[in-house]
């Protein structure tokens, strides 16, 4: 029996504990899969300051500001969150940092939960910020400590790059003991941090000098094992797959090189390639290491062949099969181990669905009715990022575009300006405060005729119900404060919500300005966390005509279709929310059982 394999935890917890082992005192983030559990873990520790910020840029600036004061600071986000924060991130590389500043960016190759799989490492190249890549939860923990130490030593921000298969993988991790949090003290240094041109020019020179120091420091983040005329370079998690393939094929004439810092590529790698004739680079997404390696080889006047993306492809996550295929092709091996081809599964697709009791389903249902009532037909639904993105699916089809956090209003503006067709912008409460506010200001200022539907469920539900600013700020007040003249609120479970929508549409048509309607009802999962349901919906089969509306047009997962086309409610899935009751035109659905105490209050908050 083995001992001291460590504690079982997911990679994100390992990263959080790595930060605690580095004396982190200030941590901020915006929830985004697969990064979310880092801040969630840190929030449990009361001797440090951790927060969910309103967006990634604010979160980054919080950590950056703390590091200016000498604190050890951490900021977390998913890969696309980097785009939101990038303006300030680029500046932080110019000014450098005091204390330490580690940016955790969680990628999502294969797009399990994202709109793109962009390669964050470009930010490292672009902004001259080192990018450190772990390959499993243990190395994520250890390299978090390395990242803090590098940042502190050089006075420069450092990116720690994780991904779905590190952040959300549970494995044993041996923890480094925690350190007392290192807070800051009030420090002013405008000639470093106030980036007016005079300061920036000086900072730029400093940045280039730090970059040279970083190149030296990261040389320890490359290791090689084995000897041979051919080498395989594995970057981050691709190293783990490369190792597994090399071991399973029993290749003993291959040099295996592990790269844990992809930007800048440790130059010491050239020493490891002295006697090598051919090298294969395995990395996810873009050829970041491959390109730097090719450049290094030219600079050094070395002569060896480099293969990479031409054998692995660009898209999707690294898997055993991809590594196996690339290595076989590279070595000119017959694929001795026959891999099961992905068969034609012929299984009906099962996309995610809105939960039973989800207020968004009712919002979409009554929005359509309201638009018809208000005389707005063939409308463009400008969508946004959140659980309500699922409104893209049938039967709703109410997300005609869905681009990035907070994009609904800007896209709607372009749609209207180019077509004179009044659009509907649909945005959730957390997204509204994330990047919706500036776009709403623009809509007011430039008089955009638009119906803005804010789906306010009081939480950042998609990533696991983190709190949203809407728990402290009324969206109605925010909209009024931004100068929106027409603001109304409705309950999406109440069929009169369609009239709320219709009235707003009529106002927009008449006044050619933005109107905001807030659909207010808590996330069903939040409600279930607070109150145990004691009611269920039942279908009176005498009254049910088999009209299909409840299961084909409302599509609550708890409503099932019987052979005779009548509806039946799955009592295990029904939470007794009653949202389906007004949906049935034949009054065949009723609620049975006693209403639990605090039920209505839970749905309101």
């Amino acid at each position, binding site marked *: 029996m083995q001992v001291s394999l460590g504690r079982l935890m997911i990679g994100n917890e390992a990263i959080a504990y790595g930060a605690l082992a580095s004396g982190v005192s200030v941590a901020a983030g915006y929830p985004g899969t*697969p990064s979310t559990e880092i801040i969630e873990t840190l929030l449990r520790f009361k001797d440090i300051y951790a927060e969910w910020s309103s967006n990634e840029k604010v979160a980054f600036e919080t950590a950056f500001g703390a590091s200016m004061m000498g604190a050890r600071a951490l900021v977390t986000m998913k890969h696309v969150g980097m785009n939101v924060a990038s303006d300030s991130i680029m500046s932080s590389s110019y000014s450098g940092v005091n204390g330490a500043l580690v940016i955790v960016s969680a990628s999502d190759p294969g797009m399990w939960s994202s709109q793109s799989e962009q390669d964050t490492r470009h930010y490292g190249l672009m902004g001259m910020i080192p990018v450190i890549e772990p390959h499993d939860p243990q190395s994520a923990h250890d390299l978090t400590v390395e990242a803090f130490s590098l940042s502190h030593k050089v006075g420069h921000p450092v990116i720690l790059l994780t991904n779905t298969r590190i952040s*959300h993988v549970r494995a044993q991790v041996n923890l480094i003991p925690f350190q007392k949090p290192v807070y800051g003290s009030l420090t002013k240094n405008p000639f470093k941090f106030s980036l007016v041109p005079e300061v920036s020019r000086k900072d730029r020179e400093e940045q280039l000098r730090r970059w040279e120091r970083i190149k030296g420091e990261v040389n320890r983040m490359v290791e090689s094992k084995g000897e041979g005329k051919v080498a395989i370079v594995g970057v981050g998690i691709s190293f783990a797959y490369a190792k597994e393939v090399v071991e399973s094929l029993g290749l003993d004439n291959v040099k295996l090189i592990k790269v844990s810092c992809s930007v800048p590529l440790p130059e010491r790698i050239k020493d490891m390639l002295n006697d090598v004739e051919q090298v294969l680079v395995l990395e996810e997404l873009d050829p970041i290491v491959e390109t730097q390696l090719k450049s290094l080889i030219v600079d050094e006047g070395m002569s060896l062949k480099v293969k990479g993306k031409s054998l692995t492809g660009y898209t999707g996550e690294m898997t055993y099969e991809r590594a196996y295929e690339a290595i076989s092709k590279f070595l000119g091996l017959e694929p001795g181990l026959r891999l099961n081809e*992905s068969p034609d599964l012929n299984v009906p697709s099962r996309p995610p669905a*809105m939960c039973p009791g989800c207020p968004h389903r009712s919002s979409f249902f009554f929005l359509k009715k309201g638009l018809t009532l208000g005389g707005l037909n063939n409308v463009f639904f400008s969508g946004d990022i959140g*659980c309500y993105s699922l409104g893209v699916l049938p039967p709703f089809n109410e997300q005609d575009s869905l681009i990035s956090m907070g994009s609904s209003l800007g896209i709607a503006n372009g749609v209207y300006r180019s077509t004179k067709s009044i659009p509907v912008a649909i945005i959730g409460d957390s997204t509204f405060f994330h990047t919706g506010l500036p776009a709403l200001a623009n809509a007011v200022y430039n008089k955009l005729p638009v119906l803005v539907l804010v789906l306010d469920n009081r939480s950042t539900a998609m990533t696991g119900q983190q709190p949203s600013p809407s728990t402290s700020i009324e969206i109605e007040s925010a909209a009024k404060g931004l100068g929106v003249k027409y603001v109304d609120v409705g309950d999406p479970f109440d069929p009169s919500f369609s009239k709320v929508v219709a009235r707003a549409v009529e106002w927009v048509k008449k006044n050619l300005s933005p109107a905001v309607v807030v659909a207010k009802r808590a996330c069903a999962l939040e409600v279930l966390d607070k109150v145990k349901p004691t009611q269920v919906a039942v279908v009176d089969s005498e009254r049910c005509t088999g009209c299909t509306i409840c*299961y084909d047009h409302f599509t609550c997962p708890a409503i099932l279709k019987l052979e005779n086309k009548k509806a039946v409610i799955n009592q295990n899935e029904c939470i007794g929310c009653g949202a389906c009751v007004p949906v049935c035109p034949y009054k065949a659905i009723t609620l049975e059982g006693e209403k639990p105490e605090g039920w209505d209050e839970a749905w309101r908050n």
Partner: protein
Amino acid sequence: MIAGIGGQGVVTTGRMIAEVFNLKGYKVFEAETHGLAQRGGAVNVHVRIGDVNTPLIPMGKADILISLEATEALRNIQFLSKEAKIFLNTFTKPASLPNVKAVQVSEVVERLRNWQVFQVDCEKIHGKCNSVMLGCLYQASLKQYVEVKDFLSVMKDETNRNSFLSGLKYFSQAYEQEVRV
């Protein structure tokens, strides 16, 4: 491999197996699916135990598939080894979309004819389906590695523990003969 629909406890099932083997000092890797993919959509969780360094099960290398919804077993057959055992909850649910038909359990079983399939009617066995399935898995395949008390110790509440024991009992009555052969 654990398959099912988001909300059925797929992630929890994988986590309980990982925790049990962790207790016994085996190296484990368990790849979970979080976030949007969890809500009522198709979910699978990879669990690897032993001398492994990567989280995903290679195609054709899974020894065991637990499917908490029958159709979801079909979505994961590319991972199965020829000798794989399948623990199949005989329950199907169509996606929450308009105009979809549920796949019949008999059709699923027919398409899995090349493997050893243990059909488990979770609804008939009292308790939580994922723990019932773990009870079956224990009785069929895990006895030589871990003990009942280990499983019971990683389960949060009494319902889970009772479900586990019901599954174990059900399996030994329904399938023990077959396993011995």
